[in-house]
């Protein structure tokens, strides 16, 4: 089978799987967040933390709960790493340095999973399972909770109440993330992924070198890493490591896992606002951008420009032989556009232009389809902006889903869209101006700049993947990136929840023939255009000096 045909079949299989699953899964998630009943295990959890899951929260209370919960998460994860050497099952690893511990704590709590450490040679079993894996679940559940709160903002009227954060958080974990990742982990194990708490195997290679092979709870970590769009691999090589991602099937399953929640949430949204068509308009915008990215990168990679790759018959440097160009392209676009950041190939090995597409995928704000929850709320914010401009063009005060987009709403949405470019660009600019970026580059010229730009874009948008050459483990980058990740995650949530609060207080405007129809393809097209022009163009100068300079020169 030719690589192109194989690739087409893989993409088709993925699309079919997503098409089949998103509907029941989306409906299920809507039922989870609308349900009035509590499971017994959930009641135990509520009782043990002293939360009342039936108390409705207004937006400040909801936000407070999100921030307090996350702050506790950062602190706990930080301390866990700092005392790692005193914990059991530490595999003899030392305590993590303060700056790296801060970076890692910020990274996992913000659902970024940027790793300035090398998993298998830094983190013991307890830190991996009690710290990192726990955050993989809860940070993902926080993202979905905030998205659900925003959806309730649209769905509810004249209440000001957004639901209960504790209930949303616990249900997300207990009813969605845990069951799906358990099944996925078992399948991964069946496919050959490693799952144990063993010691490091010391072996001597054929050439006589000593090598330590780390085992661990990889299959379970892998499942939630992708399902929760986290991306922090057990091993440094992430999903290109054969223990994490043994073969083509597991590869496809992992891509499916990282796309399944983000692509199902629009259905949940549609269900909750009482119009699945509205959900599909959002889904279509996400899918269009994602698919365009997949096609662009795949074509660019199959062209494999450059003398070396021409001679080798493929641009395979930095890619796994097991996966090839097609599956690597599919994985890389899916991971950068879902804010996941797990990789099955090294993004800095992609051609200049496809590296640019991967960067752009993050720069668009991780909304196509974006991280779990964060993708949906990010896309809804862009929809609010697009509705505002388009709504004026039909001669009415703009309204989305029956809610007026007035001064307050546009102020909050505008603040939201400011954050990601501000954090990414200021972060990159500071690193470059202070010379810290240059000292961490492993390449010169435009490619070197792309590494720095990629790192800060990845941090600000909570992706977590890297242009692999970048030496991230320095006190400066650990601290700066840690701050970028926290700001890039939690500042937007402030505006999302404030917007949700403002929307839910409104009374709905009835739909008439004069209403902008946001469920129509025209609006989807407009939304995509607005995203590309408003967020994409902001980064055009930076992209020109990185991937474009590199890609267009060759």
């Amino acid at each position: 089978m030719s690589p192109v045909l194989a690739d087409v079949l893989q993409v088709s299989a993925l699309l079919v799987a997503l098409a089949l699953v998103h509907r029941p899964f989306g409906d299920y998630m809507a039922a989870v967040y609308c349900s009035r009943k509590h499971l017994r295990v959930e009641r135990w959890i509520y009782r043990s933390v002293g939360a009342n899951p039936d108390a409705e929260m207004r937006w400040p209370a909801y936000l407070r709960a999100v921030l307090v919960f996350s702050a506790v998460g950062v602190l706990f994860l930080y301390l866990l790493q700092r005392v790692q050497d005193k914990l059991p099952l530490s595999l003899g690893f030392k305590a993590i340095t303060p700056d790296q511990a801060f970076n890692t704590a910020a990274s996992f709590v913000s659902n970024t999973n940027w790793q300035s450490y090398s998993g298998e040679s830094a983190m013991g079993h307890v830190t991996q399972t009690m710290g990192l894996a726990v955050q993989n679940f809860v940070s993902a559940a926080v993202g979905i909770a905030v998205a659900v709160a925003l959806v309730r903002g649209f769905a509810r009227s004249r209440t000001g109440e957004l639901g209960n954060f504790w209930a949303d958080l616990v249900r997300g974990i207990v009813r969605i993330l845990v069951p799906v990742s358990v099944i996925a982990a078992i399948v991964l194990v069946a496919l050959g992924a490693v799952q144990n708490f063993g010691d490091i195997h010391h072996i001597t290679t054929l050439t006589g070198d000593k090598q330590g092979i780390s085992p661990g709870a990889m299959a379970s970590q892998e499942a939630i890493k992708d399902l929760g769009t986290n991306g922090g691999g057990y091993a440094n090589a992430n999903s290109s490591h054969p223990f994490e991602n043994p073969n083509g099937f597991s590869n496809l399953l992992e891509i499916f896992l990282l796309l399944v929640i983000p692509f199902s949430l629009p259905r949940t949204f549609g269900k909750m606002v009482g119009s699945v068509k509205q959900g599909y308009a959002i889904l279509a915008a996400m899918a269009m951008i994602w698919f365009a990215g997949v096609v662009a990168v795949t074509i660019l990679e199959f062209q494999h420009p450059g003398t070396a790759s021409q001679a080798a018959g493929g641009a395979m440097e930095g890619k796994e032989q097991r996966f090839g160009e097609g599956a690597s392209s599919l994985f890389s676009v899916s991971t950068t556009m879902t804010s996941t950041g797990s990789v099955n190939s090294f993004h800095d090995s992609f051609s200049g232009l496809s590296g640019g597409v991967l960067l752009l995928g993050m720069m668009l704000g991780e909304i196509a389809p974006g991280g779990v929850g964060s993708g949906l709320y990010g896309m809804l914010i862009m929809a609010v902006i697009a509705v505002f401009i388009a709504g004026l063009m039909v001669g009415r005060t703009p309204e989305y889903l029956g809610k007026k987009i007035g001064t307050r709403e546009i102020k909050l949405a505008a603040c939201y869209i400011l954050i990601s470019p501000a954090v990414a660009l200021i972060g990159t600019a500071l690193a470059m101006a202070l010379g810290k970026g240059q000292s961490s580059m492993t390449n010169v010229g435009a490619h070197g700049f792309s590494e720095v730009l990629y790192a800060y874009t990845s941090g600000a948008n909570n992706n977590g993947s890297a242009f692999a050459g970048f030496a991230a483990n320095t006190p400066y980058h650990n601290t700066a990136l840690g701050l970028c990740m926290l700001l890039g995650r939690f500042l937007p949530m402030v505006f999302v929840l404030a917007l949700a609060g403002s929307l839910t207080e409104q009374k709905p405007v009835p739909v008439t023939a004069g209403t902008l129809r946001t469920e129509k393809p025209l609006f989807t097209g407009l939304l995509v255009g607005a995203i590309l022009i408003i967020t994409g163009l902001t980064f055009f100068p930076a992209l020109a000096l990185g991937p474009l300079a590199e890609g267009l020169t060759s």
Partner: protein
Amino acid sequence: MTNAKKPEMSTPTPTLAPHQDAPTGHQKKGRVGGGLFAPEQLVTSLPDAFRKLDPRVLVKSPVMFVVEIGSVLTTGLAVTDPGDWFGWVIAAWLWLTVIFANLAEAVAEGRGKAQADTLRKAKTDTVARRLAGEAEERVPGTELHVGDLVVCEAGDIIPGDGDVVEGVASVDESAITGESAPVIRESGGDRSAVTGGTKVLSDRIVIKITTKPGETFIDRMINLVEGAARQKTPNEIALNILLAALTIVFLLAVVTLQPFAIYAGAEQSLIVLTALLVCLIPTTIGALLSAIGIAGMDRLVQRNVLAMSGRAVEAAGDVSTLLLDKTGTITLGNRQAAEFVPVSGTTAAEVADAAQLSSLADETPEGRSVVVLAKETYGLRERHEGELDHAEWVPFTAQTRMSGVDLVENGAHRKVRKGAGGSVISWVRERGGSVSEDSAALADRISEEGGTPLLVAVEDADGARVLGVIHLKDVVKEGMRERFEELRRMGIKTVMITGDNPLTAKAIAEEAGVDDFLAEATPEDKMALIKREQAGGKLVAMTGDGTNDAPALAQADVGVAMNTGTSAAKEAGNMVDLDSNPTKLIEVVEIGKQLLITRGALTTFSIANDVAKYFAIIPAMFAAAYPGLDKLNIMGLASAESAILSAVVFNALIIIALVPLALKGVQYRPVNADKMLRRNLGIYGLGGLIAPFIGIKLIDLLISLLPGIG
């Protein structure tokens, strides 16, 4: 005096409103000048444009404020390096960008100023004849207080706003309405309000002053058209916030670019970075935003509608329910004869003849319509009163509710009468005549169809008897059905308000094509309807003129008071129609929509423009460091300098090019939201994407012809 429940007499006293029969969509040349943009306004507004460079004024428009800072910065840089022609040219064009923006606003305001001057002339110092007990004293109009009684006689200028409390007079209101025909103002009822600055033409009235000097209607009008009272509307504020956010985003993109450029070995001069920034921030819409708002208000003024706030104009665009009074809005003010129906034993021609004869002395519009119908359908020539010998005319009165004539033809007496059913029947019975049974049935049938029956009876040699029935119909104004169809496509529901009984109302509602009707409407019913619609999230617009309408006008989101109405109504509404033409409500809605569409369209255009500007400037900045980036120079611009300059020049010129559009508003068609979006996205979205590629290329071609460049 109730206004909502007009007495349903067969032939109500004719009270023609001054412009009642003005056709829909009628636009007369009123007091205000023509609305089209005249290029010479650009020149006359220049001084104002320069005055607006004051940063304290400009700071209100964040986008243009940033451009002004950029202009100062580049000028400063040019001064420090006077030999660099590029710096001077960029600085000059940045200043021009700001001035063009100011010019747009100044031109929009200038048109209002001219109107204000006309109004001021009407506000000459008047001397009021104030009543002090029985005596009369002369005081300046500016010293009047609320509650003072003043006398005005023929030739006097009314010294202030008030209500007529005694007398009736004809008043020339042309100073305000531009309409030269005098109007009647009388005490009591809904025609009691008079406006300061208008002139009494005949008779004597006593006016109770209701407004303090300086706050009169004419003062408010001056403030409104001058823009002094202009406050930003909610949508305008929201759009300004979005534009400010985009400005910040692009500011970040440009500021952070320098460290990247230094790394690339292509450090940029501050002049180039400023030029890039100005090109990227949404200057087109930023420059035109306030002009669009002023022009929108101005378009209303040109149609003789005064909006008390910009908010009301915007709300008009959002309206989803229109409450329209039947009489004068949907139907012509008066019923008209539509048919002559004979009772058994007579012919329609006989009825027509008798009806015409009996109506010759009926000067009401209904009476006249009977004469006309008889002439048109049966060729019966209108006979003049003098033509008939021995004719004794019985004119219509409200008491007898009949009109007719007593004739002596060839020696034979003949008496003909037509009028309301009850009156005619008793007239026939008094004369010992018989009332055939089918006349009652016919009258009932006409009532059910929404018409009004008038009986025609005769007394001659054969005795007194009923001949037949005249079918009087409410005549729906021409073009109303299409108008309502358009409104429906725009998503606006129309509700007809009438004092008629439900049967009649239903028939007219069906004929006119309104969506709903409220029959036997009382002011309370109207109010309840408005509140019900609003509870469902709808915005309601209505017109009104009576004191009874005041609460509903205040409750409605858009309340258009008729200028002929009471001061209570004018106070309660948020708009006043000087022509008192209720149909204009529809135009008000359209102007509101057009205002929003113009803003949205130019915003889209402005943002879409950025794509081309990137393709001009980025290769110009960095192709030296990374030659591959020259591939982005898809326009094939001559040199780096000419590329940047072309983008800056295009950015400035497009503002001037769009001033006429901003002032006139984008073309508006009453279609549904989908079609409108498709159309506007095509023109302003795609157009905004493509136009600058062409514009920048053309400017570059011109610039590269200059010696020393390219």
